[in-house]
């Protein structure tokens, strides 16, 4: 409780200690855990993307939201997209969220020309994905969404985001 109430940057120096007693070392380990937990929490983009999906669902809740005849985003699609985001590893790069004209919500990782990946989900829960993972390297397909994230999706995002 005390550790949670203290901002983590201030705890960081305390987690590195030369103390040798067992209790001092336990305390240092506990502080290391707390700072690591807070660091991960601070860099977790998933709440932001969830919030963005919430906004998209409101903006695109009526048909023709794009003025080109797009389908509306349904509540089911929104929930599916948020559930999908919750299961993505937080150490992946942060995606952009967008609405597709067929009423699905897509996540998009953009690292410039020839390095783009997208995955979309709709009411059915199936995840359609496509990506350009380097010049001339294409990958696309569909995976069922059954409460976990298919390995090929995670691998593809890691591949497309790898520095060249």
């Amino acid at each position, binding site marked *: 409780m005390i550790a949670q109430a203290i901002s983590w940057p201030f705890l960081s120096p305390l987690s590195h200690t030369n103390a040798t007693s067992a209790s001092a070392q336990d305390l240092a380990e506990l502080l290391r855990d707390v700072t690591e937990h807070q660091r991960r929490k601070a860099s977790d983009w998933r709440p932001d993307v969830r919030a963005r999906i919430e906004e998209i669902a409101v903006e695109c809740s009526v048909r023709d939201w*794009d*003025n080109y*005849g797009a389908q509306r985003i349904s509540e089911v699609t929104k929930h599916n997209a948020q559930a999908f985001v919750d299961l993505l590893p937080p150490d992946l790069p942060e995606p952009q969220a967008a*609405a597709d004209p*067929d009423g699905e919500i897509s996540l998009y990782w*953009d690292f410039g020309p020839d390095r783009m990946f997208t995955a979309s989900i709709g009411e059915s829960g199936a995840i359609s*994905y496509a990506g350009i993972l380097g010049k001339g390297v294409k990958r*696309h397909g*569909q995976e069922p969404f059954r409460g976990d994230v298919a390995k090929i999706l995670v691998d593809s995002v890691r591949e497309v985001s790898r520095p060249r």
Partner: protein
Amino acid sequence: MWLRFSLTRLGRFLGLDNLSVDVSGSDDFTRFLVHKGHLRRNGVHLSGLLPKYNEQKNRWETSSHRTGGLRSEQIWLFGYLYVESEGRHIRARGIGVVSSVTDLGFGFEVNGKPYPRHADIIGWHDEKHQRQMKALELANRMQREMDPR
């Protein structure tokens, strides 16, 4: 109606008086982008290219315009006059050449409706991931120009 208009001063300015029925691969085309989700960093988002389903024609299609022979200011004027409407505001335009469409296996159907320079990008697959893949490839080949207004 369009024939008469094409001979007016504005029609001639927009190059409608000598508009060829045939399109060559080197001709330019424009996709007007009317939603913020259609834009990505320095480029066109695939969402701005993904097709809508035309139930009358029973096919997926992406609306575009051939712009060969027009200068940039003429293309923008064309967009303001014929693409914008109440509630539809142009934000940018995606620019490409027709061969980048046809090289991906699409058809570029010049149909002149609802405007003489209108053309549909057709030949999209029914499977979503196939459409995403093609839209990504097309977006990867296109440039973007923001609305100068």
